[in-house]
């Protein structure tokens, strides 16, 4: 087990407000990590920092990619994504007016090239590429039982399926780390159970590191190998589910918040 992502003393200030202060963490290959904490603890902000949606005020993020270790600070979101860090969003952000297939194909954009000439004049190589990439995407969709809805517009899918599609889209990036931001939000227990199986499957079959933000504690305890707890922008604790369950600071911060 070696470290794939290392975060050192990460800080993010919004004006006078410190949303994330001195957060350090490490992620290893092929592990399933949960990030928990009360509302407003800065979990999504941390995700946004790691995936380049917002830039950190200070601190360092280093990632061991296929081409050696790189620093992610200051890199654009699309560059970070193409390095192998994919994500989903708390409020689903699918390409609503595109089909299910196109949603997945978009995520594969940087994995292939269609020359300008072959695109504009529809040379045979264009058809070949399109067919090949569509086949890949359909296969991926099939793994998640979405093969029947390839031509459906994303906005017409039921809510739970939309969440699933967002995960598929992220996987289409062929990521090394997958960040899931509250994947079970708004789901009923049955859907949550499905999702739990899905995440396990993803982690097992694709051999990637999965980090998830989740409020559903049963899901977290059931899935996560390790847990990070964030409170008021700072890292409160980390450890295995059993350790976290017994950590007095966590219980105080977390339950205290939840009760009030």
């Amino acid at each position, binding site marked *: 087990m070696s470290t794939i992502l290392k975060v050192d003393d990460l800080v993010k200030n919004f004006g006078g407000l410190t949303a994330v202060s001195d957060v350090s963490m490490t992620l290893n290959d092929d592990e399933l990590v949960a990030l928990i904490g009360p509302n407003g603890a800065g979990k*999504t902000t941390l995700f*946004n920092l790691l995936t380049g*949606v*917002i830039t950190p005020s200070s601190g360092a993020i280093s990632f061991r990619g296929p081409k050696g270790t790189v620093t992610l600070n200051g890199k654009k979101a699309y560059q970070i994504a193409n390095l192998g860090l994919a994500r989903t*969003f708390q409020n689903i952000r699918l390409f609503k007016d595109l089909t299910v297939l196109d949603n997945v194909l978009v995520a594969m954009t940087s994995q292939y090239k269609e020359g300008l000439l072959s695109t504009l004049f529809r040379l045979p190589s264009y058809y070949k590429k399109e067919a090949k990439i569509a086949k890949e995407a359909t296969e991926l969709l099939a793994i998640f039982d979405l093969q029947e809805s390839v031509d459906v517009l994303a906005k017409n899918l039921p809510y739970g399926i939309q969440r699933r599609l967002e995960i598929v889209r992220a996987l289409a990036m062929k990521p090394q780390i997958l960040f899931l931001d509250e994947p079970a939000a708004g789901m009923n227990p049955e859907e949550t159970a499905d999702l739990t199986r899905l995440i396990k499957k993803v982690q097992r079959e694709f051999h990637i590191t999965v980090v998830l933000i989740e409020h559903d504690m049963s899901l977290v305890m059931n899935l996560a190998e390790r847990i990070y707890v964030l409170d008021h922008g700072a890292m409160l604790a980390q450890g295995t589910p059993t350790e976290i369950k017994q950590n007095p600071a966590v219980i105080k911060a977390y339950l205290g918040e939840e009760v009030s």
Partner: protein
Amino acid sequence: MEASTLQTFFQQLINGLSLGSIYALLALGYTMVYGIIKLINFAHGDIYMLGAFWGYYVINFWHFNFLFALLSAMLVGAVAGVIIEYFAYRPLRHAPRITALITAIGVSFLLENGMSYLYGSTPRDFPQIIEPVNYHVFGVLISNIQILILVTACLLMVILQVIIKKTKMGKAMRAVSVDPDAAELVGINLNRTISFTFALGSSMAGAAGVLIGLYYNSIDPLMGMTPGIKAFVAAVVGGIGSVPGASIGGFLIGLLETLVQSVGLSAYKDAAVYFVLIVILLVLPAGIFGKNIKEKV
């Protein structure tokens, strides 16, 4: 006709400020309407034209005095604004914004060409109800009408600011501009608030029509086109949605145009305005006074 450099400078400053106050007057209405329904109300410049024509008729045929002409033109502007909103924009409130924009352009075309059709497109002279008087202050010329426009522009700006900040309707307007759905949930009458905003903004244009007609002494059905676009630029530069921003933007554009012309580059005065617009937007994407709202992820 000789003048010292300093006198010329102050004269140009006065020229710039009076031109700027005209843009500011129009930009106020633009900024209010945009602030509340995020629509570039292309027809705003044409309501200004309607105000000018109304002033022309009531002064010439009903012999209104200046104040009544001004107030009635504001009323006409307000009514026109509300009617346009009711028939042309309200049905499209949930349509794509670009559709509403095209409708606004359509309304603008309709007013311009409708007036051309009814009254001809030849420019008319505006009745000189206030005799222009020039004051010489240290060799700098300033006319009573220039002062009147400048004072009116500032006064209206203050009144608007008070309405928006202090009154109940103003609060409703601010609420609707932030989140119309939430505003409706807390019991704000959306339609009435938007109508009120149109009435207020359009009455500014009506007033501007009379004032500018009086100042330049020339009105025609297409008079709203160019100043309309310039005023919108002024509102954007100032930060659209912001009342002080619209005024500052107006004065800025007026002064800039004057500066460019005074150095002999009159052929490029519009180009300079657009260039400054682009530069300001690049540095301050929401204009000088605008709040840059980032999308929440």
